């Protein structure tokens, strides 16, 4: 199944963060890179959905910070998730191919 735009952003952020990918970090990563604000609730639901599809795994580990005694849910992209990302990227690239001119004049 193709990935939605938000799903792609989440998976890419996780890849950027590597071992340190957990909720707050993912939010920060997306917000700082895209300048768009991220809805927390959507993010957590997306985590669940991507995990149920097998695109990411999660692991509870203690972390720093004021968490009211809760563990951090660290997430990592699976091989399946990578494949899905690659596929989404390819289809986008295919679509963008030859449209460079449009992009520049459109600016």
């Amino acid at each position, binding site marked *: *199944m*193709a990935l*939605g*735009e938000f799903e792609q952003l989440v998976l890419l952020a996780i890849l950027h963060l590597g071992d340190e990918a*957990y*909720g*707050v970090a993912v*939010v920060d990563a997306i917000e700082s890179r895209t300048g768009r604000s991220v*809805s*927390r*609730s*959507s993010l*957590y*639901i997306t*985590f*669940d*959905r991507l995990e149920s599809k097998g695109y990411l795994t*999660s692991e*509870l580990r203690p*972390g720093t*910070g*004021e*968490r*009211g005694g*809760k*563990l*951090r*849910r660290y997430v990592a992209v699976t091989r399946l998730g990578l494949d899905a990302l690659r596929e989404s990227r390819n289809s986008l690239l295919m679509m963008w191919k030859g449209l460079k001119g449009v992009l520049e004049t459109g600016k």
Partner: protein
Amino acid sequence: MSEQLRPPPRMARWLIGRVLTSATQQHGVLGDLAEEHARRAAQDGRLRSNLWYWRQAALVYLKYRLANGERARGQRGSTARGLVHDFVSDMRFAARTIRRQPVFTTVTVATLGLGIGAVTSVFSVVDSMLDKRLPYADPTELVTVWLYSPAEQEPQNDEGLVVDGRRSPHLTFPQYRALAEARNAFDGVAAFGAGNMVLTEVAEPARVSVGVATSTLFSVLGREPVFGRAFFLEEEGSVAGGAANVVILSHETWRTRFTSDPEVIGKQITLDERLHTIVGVLPADFRIRSAAEASTDTGMRDLWVPIGQPGYRLGGIGASAQDWEVVARLKEHISVEQAIVEAESAMRARLGDIGSRIQLVTRLEDEGLALDSRTALLVTIVALFLVITCSNVATLALGDLLGRRAELNTRVALGAGVGRLVRQLLTESAVLGLLGGALGILVAFVGTTALISLGPPIPRLDAVTLDLRVLAFAVAVGLFAGLAAGTLPTLVSTRGAGTTSTLSDVSQRTTDRREGRIQSVVLFFEVAITVVLLVSGGLFLRSLQHMLAVDEGLESQSVATVRILLPDSPAPAPDKMARFSREVLRELKESPLISSASAVGGLPFGGGIIGADGLRIVGSESERFSARRLHILPGFLETLGIPLIAGRSFAESDGADAPPVMIVMESLARRYWPGASPIGQQIMHWGEPRTVVGVVGDVHLERLDTEIEPTFLVPLTQIPRSEVNFIARANGPVSAVFGVLRNAIRTVDGNLPITQTATMSDLVLESVKAERFRTFLVMTFGVVAAMLAATGVFGVTARSVARCSREMGIRSALGAQHQHLLITILRGKLRVATFGTLAGLAVALLFARLLSHFLFGIETWDIPTYAAVGSLVLLTSTVSGYLPARRILRVEPADVLRAE
């Protein structure tokens, strides 16, 4: 962090905790939000941080609630309990959705109700017609004996059956006796007939329908009386030389006239002025239809008398005439072919060559249980109509669902399976269908009442009721129609749901294009079917016009008719007849309201004209022919305005003792005396010569659409009949004359039952009742279908206007002419409507060939009908497309651009 840091609001945390089901979620979400809450508190202060936390909590709560719900539903779907749970919650959701869209719901339910109502009315009618439960034991073994005469050039169909209709179920009594000898073929043979008698009780004398049967009838059918006994062989007139005066009551007669009296056996009643002893009561469902009139005969008789009842001879013709229908029970293990061979040899053994072959038809076929063409037509029309209502609802639903695309996408995004969504949407369709079904039952109630009041052409129409089976049918059709109409839109709108972003323009346009294509297809069929229905209705209408334009040969305006039945079966003595009618006519002539009056046995269009008599012209041995007979009194021609062409009319002097005379109709005269006058010629009729004294104009006897039949008139005083119609031409309003007629008859004989009163014009109209009914029905369906198709075009155009308004606004801003925009919007719809119309016309052309035997005076390709329907449908489509499309002209470019 610092000491004074407080944890996030407890209530908000509790709220989040309620929707998070796994530990992973709880740690992840609550921990992350707490972490951010602390960070925000340090930056923005506690209040803003708390507010932020509340907001997140609410969002998490709502989104997880929704997602959990969808997922839970998706998972539960696999178990039976889950299915029930799903179904209940689907129904609830459907009810909510439906309530939220009152206009859509109303239009949909109304459309479905109309379609389902129409189908249900027709079902209830057809159902009662196709009542397969023949009330006989082992009905498949029962056959009716038909005779047919194979001439040299007899047209035959593939099965070798004679197809031109020269077959008859009427046998002579000797023929029946011969068949009864064919014991190798049949287990039992019975003959029966039907007629009327006058039952005189303490109160009103009443005309009752009487079945006449051999003593074997009840045992052959396997139905014995519930009380008393069947007839004995000795009670048959043919055996004893005069039948016993015994009678078997129908259950209905026993119930209504004898108040279900258990002691009724042995009591006596007066039939045709003779005392009869009641010997039995039949079961309530006992019936045997006349095979010759299976389509109109209910097969129910008030009473049964044994064959050969003294004085009783069917229709005034002797028992030796061809009037008996013969029903037989096939021997076990004998084929119909073998039985025919046996029966024919038995017939030959007793009667020699009768010049006819025998055909055995199962009772099932004879009782019209196979779909006849009228029923098939009705079913086809109504099925087409249901298709239209379903397609209309489908376009409605498609538009509605595409409007809800955002909702559907969101639900998929939140984890609902597409299959789950499909089920939900189909539940909605089913609920709409059921609502439509409920409305349909109401419509069917009205529709069935209308069918019953309008239509005679359907057998047993009076037995039509809306029973439980019919209601179940309505509900089933409702479900079916709802689902049929809902499936396509559901599949279209859920295909690809969730894979595309909700707001993506690209996907919007793709779906629009798909929607447009599907709507075009649906619209195409809708228009085409409408055209087929309208053309059929139009052909019927033109055919009816042609029939009504036929000159019936008489002036039916301002003539009142009253039918009486004299008690002496089959006919009163000539002098009694003459005296009685003369007295009634004298009474009538005294009335200032009446300009002329007369009496006739066998009134044209009155339904009482008896078969045909064999005639032979005296002096030319070869010229034998048959003609129909009317019994008239002087004044008949004047009263009905039938022109006298040659010779004279009957006079008072043509009485019982005067020389036998007759008048012939013009076409008969022309056929047998071409170029010569028949006046003075003699014709042998019933063994005595009658002199032709006059020639009158041709008159249609029963129907307007049949050829004029050879007909002759005899004085009622010379050949009396028990069934007499008094006719009177009114000076003023015809309704005033009935009272005069009734009083005159009552003055002369107060005991006579009046069986029918009608104006002559009503009788003529009555003869085309079947045609009027058919025309009305098909036209109604056609017009409603046209209205539905028009709303379809309207809706589709309105939606595409709404969709295109942005594009049109931009085009208009760029200088496009309004007219061009209008044409752009309309072009597609009109193209579909045009193609639909053309296809409809082509199909109608084929369909009309199936209707050809219902048509009179026009061809199946009657150009005016096709042209009128074609242009009407195109005009309607254009108007109903133009009305919503006009709105595009009011789009302000500035508004559109601002919205961009």
